[in-house]
């Protein structure tokens, strides 16, 4: 067999792919499901936390800062393992899917909070002064005048961060979540062939490359706004 034929047989084996593609597809749905949940709930929570921080209540700000720092400083895999293995022995039983979701969601919330808070503090003070001068209360000014402008600033970094974190769904493999990677490694050990892995890699690229290109376009668009 020539080099190329060997390569195809190892990584692009029709028979193996046909057999295991359905499983990988199942993994794709799981990955998509997880990613959507993480992004929607994580950014929402992060926004709420950033808004709370705007009220400058010392003790709440303290908690939020500690939360944001810890969840940004710890490697996701460490958190996942601590929660997955530790909770059952403490009497709480959560599915691997739920653990993965919780950890990644909280991590995205932490990053979102920092990004949106940076956006809020970047909004020109004059905007606050103008809206307050027309009688709008603090909360109203925050929500209708400041937050929209903060979000505009926050979108490029938020998109990048969301993509980075949803890629971490692959870590679910380690605790048995049936995501793309898990299906692929299982298929690989059963078939003794690397094609499932190749398919998995391609599936991830197909899923995330459009997002990466979109975020590249977003940054370009928002860079013009600033100038």
């Amino acid at each position, binding site marked *: 067999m020539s080099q190329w034929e060997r390569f195809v047989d190892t990584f692009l084996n029709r028979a193996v792919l046909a057999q295991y593609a359905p499983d990988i597809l199942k993994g794709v749905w799981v990955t998509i499901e997880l990613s959507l949940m993480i992004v929607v709930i994580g950014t929402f929570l992060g926004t709420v936390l950033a808004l709370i921080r705007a009220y400058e209540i010392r003790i709440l700000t303290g908690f939020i800062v500690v939360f944001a720092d810890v969840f940004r400083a710890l490697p996701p895999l460490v958190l996942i393992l601590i929660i997955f293995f530790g909770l059952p022995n403490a009497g709480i039983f959560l599915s691997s899917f739920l653990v993965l979701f919780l950890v990644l969601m909280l991590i995205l919330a932490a990053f979102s909070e920092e990004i949106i808070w940076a956006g809020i503090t970047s909004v*020109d003070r*004059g*905007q606050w*002064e*103008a*809206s*307050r*001068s*027309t*009688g*709008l*209360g603090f909360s*109203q000014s925050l929500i*209708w*005048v400041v937050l*929209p*402008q903060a979000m*505009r600033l926050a979108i490029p970094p938020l998109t990048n961060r969301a993509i980075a974190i949803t890629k971490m769904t692959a870590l679910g493999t380690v605790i048995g979540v049936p995501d793309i990677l898990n299906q692929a490694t299982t298929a690989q050990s059963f078939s003794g062939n690397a094609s499932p892995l190749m398919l998995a890699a391609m599936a991830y690229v197909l899923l995330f490359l459009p997002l990466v290109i979109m975020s590249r376009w977003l940054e370009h668009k928002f860079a013009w706004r600033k100038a």
Partner: protein
Amino acid sequence: MRGTTCNLDYDLPTLELRGLHKSFGQLDVLRGIDLKVAQSELVFVVGPSGSGKSTMLRCCNRLEEPSAGEVLLEGVSIAGARVDLNTVRQRIGMVFQAFNLYPHLSARKNVTLALRKVQGLRKKNADEIALAALDRVGLSDKADSYPSELSGGQQQRVAIARALALEPQVMLFDEPTSALDPELVGDVLEVMRDMKSAGITMLVVSHEMNFARDAADRIIFMDQGKIVEQGPPKEIFEAPRNERTRVFLSRVMGS
């Protein structure tokens, strides 16, 4: 067009400052300001930078909190526990040097925001009022434009409309034309002249001396946190009593 008002009533001033003091840490910016602005009066405040003009203006709607002294709107203090600051602020209009229009909202929405959120007006009512205000400043055809699509002068006029729509008792202007290109200044001053004719009470901090000469009822010269001299334009421009006033005016007028 002589715009000066007759019959100014100082017994019931629209706006009054009593013994106003303001310090930022060690720095005393306002050292005792006593001022009465009568209804429909246009009071013009001039002075070198650092004299405290802007700070005084900003104390009038509590963007800065006075360190001592009182601000009274139609005889009632705007500070104090019983006072709802947001309601009071609706009766005091403020126009900023940097316009501070909301970039994410159209001109119309800039004006209706407070009408809808604070006064609770329905969209239709708020829109009507907004369009009327924009019309007064000559920009009803730009109602759906965004600030980034408007010139500086247009933006400032929208800012004026935004404040006017709330029908305040007094309008405060903090160097309204200082950030504008010279050819755009005229449009804004035109609007201010119209407001004077309509009888709106105005307290203006500005360098536009010609406008002051034409339209102001009273000119106040401030220096180092105090009112040094005040009087009708004729008096101040032609025969200032105080040396410092004289020096400042000669510098500014360039003669």
